[in-house]
C-alpha cells in the first residue's frame, strides 16, 4: 500500500473541493440566472474537460504552466519554483479539469430555484447575502453536495492529466491512481489490487453518503 500516494490524493481531492465550493457556487449561480452575450461559449469552454481526452487537456495545461509560458514565468518569478511538476501545479490543473463536475450540478441546482422565490426573499427585505445564506444555499444544497462529492471522487481517480502535469514525483505529485499503474507495470498485482479496492471503497462510500443526505424525505400527504 502506497500510503504517501493515498494521502497526497486525498489532500489534492480535499483542496480541489475546497476551492471549487465557492468558485462553483459563484459561477454556477451566475450562469443560472444571468443572461449575457457569449454565455454559450463560456458554458462550452467550462464543459470541455468532459469531452476532451485527459491527455489532450494535460498537454495544454503542461504548455500553459511550463517555464516558457507567461503563467509559468510569472509563477516562477513570484514563488521561486516552477509550476509544472509541483503539487501547486497539480492542484491548479485539478481545479481546472474538475470545473464542469463542480459547476454543472450547482448551476442546475440554482436554476431549479423559482425566480419568484428569489423575488419574494428580496421583497421580504432579505439582503443579497442573507438570500444566499438562508434561501439559495439550503435549496441548492443537494446539487452543491453532489457536485463536491463528484469533484472529490473524480480527483481521486484522475490519471492522464495528473501524469502529464505532475509527472510522478513521490510525495509531491504521485497520486494513488499513478501508483496503481506503477504497481501493475512492475507486476505487483496484489498491491495494485489493494489500492484499487481502497479507492473503490472511498468513492462508493462518498457517493452513497451523498445520495443518503440529498434524498428528499417522503412527502407528507396534503391536508
Amino acid at each position, binding site marked *: 500500500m502506497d500510503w504517501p500516494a493515498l494521502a497526497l490524493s486525498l489532500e489534492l481531492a480535499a483542496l480541489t473541493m475546497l476551492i471549487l465550493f465557492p468558485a462553483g457556487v459563484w459561477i454556477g449561480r451566475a450562469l443560472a440566472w444571468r443572461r449575457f452575450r457569449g454565455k454559450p461559449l463560456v458554458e462550452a469552454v467550462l464543459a470541455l474537460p468532459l469531452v476532451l481526452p485527459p491527455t489532450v487537456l494535460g498537454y495544454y495545461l503542461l504548455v500553459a504552466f511550463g517555464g516558457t509560458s507567461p503563467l509559468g514565468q510569472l509563477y516562477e518569478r513570484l514563488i521561486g519554483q516552477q509550476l509544472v511538476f509541483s503539487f501547486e501545479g497539480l492542484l491548479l490543473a485539478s481545479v481546472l479539469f474538475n470545473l464542469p463536475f463542480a459547476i454543472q450540478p450547482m448551476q442546475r441546482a440554482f436554476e431549479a430555484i423559482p425566480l419568484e422565490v428569489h*423575488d419574494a426573499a428580496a*421583497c421580504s427585505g432579505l439582503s443579497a447575502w442573507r438570500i444566499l445564506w438562508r434561501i439559495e444555499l439550503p435549496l441548492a444544497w443537494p446539487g452543491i453536495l453532489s457536485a463536491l462529492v463528484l469533484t472529490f471522487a473524480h480527483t481521486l481517480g484522475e490519471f492522464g492529466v495528473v501524469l502529464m502535469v505532475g509527472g510522478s514525483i513521490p510525495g509531491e505529485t504521485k497520486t494513488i491512481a499513478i501508483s496503481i499503474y506503477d504497481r501493475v507495470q512492475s507486476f505487483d498485482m496484489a498491491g495494485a489490487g489493494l489500492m484499487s479496492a481502497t479507492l473503490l471503497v472511498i468513492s462508493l462510500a462518498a457517493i452513497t453518503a451523498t445520495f443518503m443526505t440529498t434524498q428528499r424525505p417522503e412527502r407528507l400527504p396534503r391536508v
Partner: protein
Amino acid sequence: MSEQGLTVRLRQSSPIALDAEISCARGELLALVGPSGSGKTTLLKAIAGLLRVRSGLINCGDETWLDTDRAIHVSPQQRRVGVVFQQYALFPHLSALANVMEALHDVPAAERRARGLGWLERLHLRGLEHRKPAQLSGGQQQRVALARALARGPRVLLLDEPFSAVDRMTRLKLYEEVADLRRDLAMPVVMVTHDLDEALLLADRMSILSDGVILQSGLPFEVMTRPESPRVAGLLGHRNIFRAGVLEHLPQGGTTVIEWRGHRLRARLQSQFAVGRQVTWTIPRSHVVLVGRGTAGESGQENAVDGVVAQLVRLGENASIVVHVGGSDRPPVFLSVPMHVVRGHDIAPGAQVALRFLPEAIHLMPGDRDPSRRAHVRAMQTDNI
C-alpha cells in the same frame, strides 16, 4: 388623493411596452384588470422594484422609489413592499412560522417568534406553524404568503392574482378574509387579476390594462357599465358593441336619441356627443329585454326592435340568446334571460321576437378616432355594424 398613498407613472417601449399611470390611496384597494400578457404583473414587479423600467416615477407617501430622471432606483429591500405572488413563492425548506419570521429578520430575535405567531394566528393558521409549505393546502399557503407579506409592516401591499390557484370554495372564504383584513390595513393595496367579478367584489377602484397601457380607471361598477372606448368595452366582455348616429338631445327628458339600423333608440342623456356624430354604443346583455314573440310594433313599447333568434344556449337557469336584428349579415344582439321567460314565450331558434333596450343602460362611446385604425377596422368588419 394619494398624498399618503402610491403614485406610479411608467413609460417604456421595450422590452415590454408600458404606458401606465396609477394612484392608490392609503387603505384603498386598486384592482389592475386585464387579459393575460397585458402587462399587469410587469407593472406590479416595477412597483416592487423587481424590474427596472426605462422611464418612470414611483412615489409612496413622502418617499421616492423610482425617478429615472434623477437616477433613483430604490431596491426592493428598501421599498418595504409586501408581495403575495401568484404561486405564493413560499420558501419551501422553511416552516410556515419560519417563512413569516424571515420577513421579520430585522426585528429583535426575542420578539420575532411572538410576532410571527401573532400573524399566523391572525390568518387562522394556528397549529400549522411547524408545517412546511408542501404540507399545507393551497388556501393555507396563500394565508402564509399573506402573513409573510404583512409581517414586515409594508408601505404597500401588492397581490398578484392571489386567488387564482385555489378552488372556488376556498376563494370565496379568502375573499371574506381579505375584506375583513382590509378594515385594519392602512396601506395602499394593488391587486392584479383577470377576474372581473373579483375586482367588482373587492376593489374600491379598478384600472383596465391592455398591452401595457392603462385604458381606463375608476369605480369598478362605473368602469364596467360605462367603458370609455370600444376597446375597453371589449376587454370587459361586452358583446353588444354597435355603431350609431346621434340624432338629438332632450335634456328635459334626460334622453339622447340615436339612430341605429333604422330605429330611433332613446338612451341616457350623453350630451358630450354632438348631434350628427357617429358613435359606438354598448349595452350589457342583462339589460336587453326579451319582450316576446311577434313584432316590436305589436308590443307598443319604446326602444323595441324586431329580430330573429339565431342561437339559444341554456346555461343553468339562464339562457344565452343571440338575435339577428336587421339581417343575419350584421353583428347580432346578445342577451341573457331566465329560462322561465324562454319557456313562457316558447322561444326557439328561428323565432321572430321583439327586443327592448333599456334606455338608461345604453352607453355611448366615441367611434375610433385614429383614422388609420378606423380605415382598418372598417375594412375588417364594421361596414355593416
